[in-house]
């Protein structure tokens, strides 16, 4: 079960970074935003978002602060750091190459 998560880890991290690049959000908000932006194609367990958030925070790519939800409930809000922004650029480039490569392979069939 871990290896499977590992396999998705890279892409999920990328999506989280991309989402937070637009504005700071709490966990539930990030999950909804990804669902919305991918037009429901990327159907991942919402729970798997949290290990990814803590991992990215450990690596210094995002940081958290105490915020307030639209209903006025105190809640933890994540925002992208400088490191995170740089990583997003790098990972995006890497991902594109990977996707192109896969695409190229599929196209040769």
């Amino acid at each position, binding site marked *: 079960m871990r290896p499977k*998560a*590992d*396999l998705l*880890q*890279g*892409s999920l*991290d990328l999506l989280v970074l991309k989402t937070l690049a637009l504005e700071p959000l*709490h*966990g*539930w908000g990030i*999950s909804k935003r990804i669902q919305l932006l991918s037009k429901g194609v990327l159907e991942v*367990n*919402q*729970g*798997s978002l*949290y*290990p990814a958030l*803590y*991992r990215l925070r*450990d*690596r*210094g790519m995002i940081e958290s602060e105490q915020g307030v*939800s639209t209903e006025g*409930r105190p*809640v*933890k809000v994540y925002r992208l750091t400088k490191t995170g922004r740089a990583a997003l650029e790098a990972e995006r*480039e*890497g*991902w594109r*190459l*990977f996707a192109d*490569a896969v695409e190229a392979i599929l196209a040769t069939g």
Partner: protein
Amino acid sequence: MGWWRWARRRLQVLSDKDSVEAELDDEIRFHLEMEIRQQIEAGVDAAEARRRALVAFGGVERFKEEVRDVRGARILDDFVLDSRVALRSLPKQPAFLMAVLLTLGIGIGGNVAMFGVLERSLFRALPYPDSEELLLGRVTWEGEVGFTVSGPDFFDYRDETASLENLAALTPFPVAATVTGRGEPERVSAPLASAGFFETFGVSPAVGRYFLPEEGRVGGAAVAVLSHGYWQRRYASDPGIVGRAISVEGLPTTVVGVAPAGFRFLMDADMWRSIQRDAGWASARQFHNFVLVGRLADGTSVEAAQAEIDAISTRLEDVYPDTNRDKGLNVTPLRQALAEQYGPTLNILSVAVALLLLIACANVSGLLLARGGARRSEMAVRSVMGGGRGRLARQLLTENVYLALGAGVVGTVLAVWIQRGILTFMPMEMLGRIEPGISGKTLAFALSMSALTVVLFGVIPSLSMARADPAGDLRAGAGRGGDRRSRFRSGLVVAQVAMTAVLLAVSGLLFRSFQELTRVESGFDTEQLVTAEVSIPRGKYGDAEAGVRFFEQLSEQVRSIPGVSSVAVTTHLPIQDPGGNIRVSRPEEFGADGVFGTLAYRRSVMPGYFGALAIPLVGGRDVRPTDDAGAPEAVILSVALAERLFGDEDPMGRTVAVDQGGSEPGIREVIGVVGDVVSGSLSEGLDLTMYYPYAQSPSRRMRLAVRARGDLGGVVTGVREALRALDPDVPLSDVTTMDEAISQSVSDERTVAVVLVLFASVALLLAGVGLYGTLAYQVSRQLHEIGVRIALGASGSSVTRGIVGDGLRLVGFGLVLGIPGAYAAGRLVQGMLFGVEPADPLTLFAVAGFLSVVAVTACLLPARRAARVDPVEAFRSE
């Protein structure tokens, strides 16, 4: 930075684990609340909304657990994961695994073995109580440290020193003696020791007592202390032996005690006999027969003791100018003094094994880089999949840690064998018996060696591979790029070649030096010579005439044994048993200006000695039976000694003055001159030697050299039978052949040469493999280019030349660095060289030649593969 943050987080997790848990709980609760509310707003009833929210989340506990993993145990987790990957993937490449384990194993094994030897010899305390207080006293001449001290000088130092609590003397060689009276006569090792000898070491007797001071004085009683081993073996541990007299050299000698089990100093002794001041060993200031052992008095330093000893030496010089000019005594901590003996050899071997390890590490580093080339696609994919660079490097490093640990185990196993080998060749008897073995300290050393090798061989390849540029690598497949890496690999090969050149040169020099030593012209015919010692007991042959008659008869009997062509009988045989030297001069020059002539070896020979050893008689005549006690005292000089004393003048009929320890010299008439021989050691060449007629200077201990025509074994049996027929109480001991004895005399030199040549061969092999690997890798990466060149019409042989040229260029660089290194290393071992210069051109050429031959061989295989490249295949494989 990353580590610091990780550590801070880690601490946070540990310190406020609960608050972090609460934070996570709250976050998830909020998430579920929002999800449920959204469902309800979409028109689902509360229970169903809750169910759907939980399903969408996918298991609250599971993800909480995962978050904990991410935060807390991440590093440990990674390590376990990496370990699993490493342990699963490494055995899938058995050739690679074997190569690494063996290469590093040999490197680590050599070092662990050496460390074990050093630990056991140099660093271990000597087996005596408070051994660091023990000092060794050796004579100095003009400030140069020699070895043996004279008896009278010893007594003066002992009586006058205050800084030494105890000072005792011992003959540093096993003065062999015959014990008779209990069945078969037996030759034993029975050195002479002064009173206070055992007390200095601080060991108590197992039975009885040690020597009393009066037993060492003029006219003291003949007493002995048995060794524990001899007491067990010969007297079945009977305590009743104490107080009884045994017959040693036919002299009734009272056993006063038994030394404790395991007590040993310098050599294995069966018993220690008390010095008697009036006996020859300790009778004169110019007879240097003893080493001294002292114990530092409380609160005194070695320097202070030395200063006090120097003052005594100066006084002795004033009182005895004839014998003590420029003579002194050096005191050095015992361990240090004994270890000096082995220092140079151990140093060379240590440096050699260290070089070997460096070469092994460079080699494995190259192997890893080559394998890295094959794994770059894997690394690139992993990197895209979210493996950070540090993470990948850690994964690779984990693999290397396992490799190093495995190599450490292999090395430790090999070390046991290597150590046994070293100790067999180099027993280091001076320091006591050294058993091979792996101590806890040695194991710790092996472990740290493994850790060191990880740093040396693993870190750079790991970082270099993790640095892999995923975009470039994926785009280009496993093709080109990574110039920096191939430069690094080339650097590794150059370093290996350079270090191998140094090792080869040093081993070559020592080997040549050993060869030179065995080529030394001994001055006599060493082949087909059986040698043995015969010692007749004093009790039965107290009368000198009886001894002379005995050896004349023995000589006669042995000569008539079938297969024997001639027999030499003498007190000392060349090389085997140098004996002492003594001063000799022209009588009119004796004692002039305090000089007593030149030092020459002295031996007594029976008629026929020179003929049997094939030493040419240059002038005059051989010893005759008529040169007996009643005839004028005669002497035969070696050519060089005759020239030294008489120059161009004819020495025949002249007289010489021999220093006999008193004020009056012995005057002898020169009756003959014979060819020079090596009387002492091969490394010192031909010696000044003089020969007395046996009957005029008889000894009860003689050596035979029997020239055999055929089978040596039959001759030995014949000699034994002849001796038994003559007197069954006289043992034949120390039976060997002259060639064997000569080979034994250079065994130390041979050991160092053989061990080093062995190390150097391994290094050469590794360097060859390293070069091969680098070139093979290069060829596999340049297939495309080579294909193009061949397609454009390049011939196979020009491609081969190109690759071989690449290889030779690396070797050339290595030699440019290695040859000066070899010269420097040669200078370091200069003291151990005999007949060879550190810059010996033959050795240096041979090193260059050897390396080049190995290099060409290593290049040829990849070069031929390159020449056979099929352009079509090469393009397709891109």
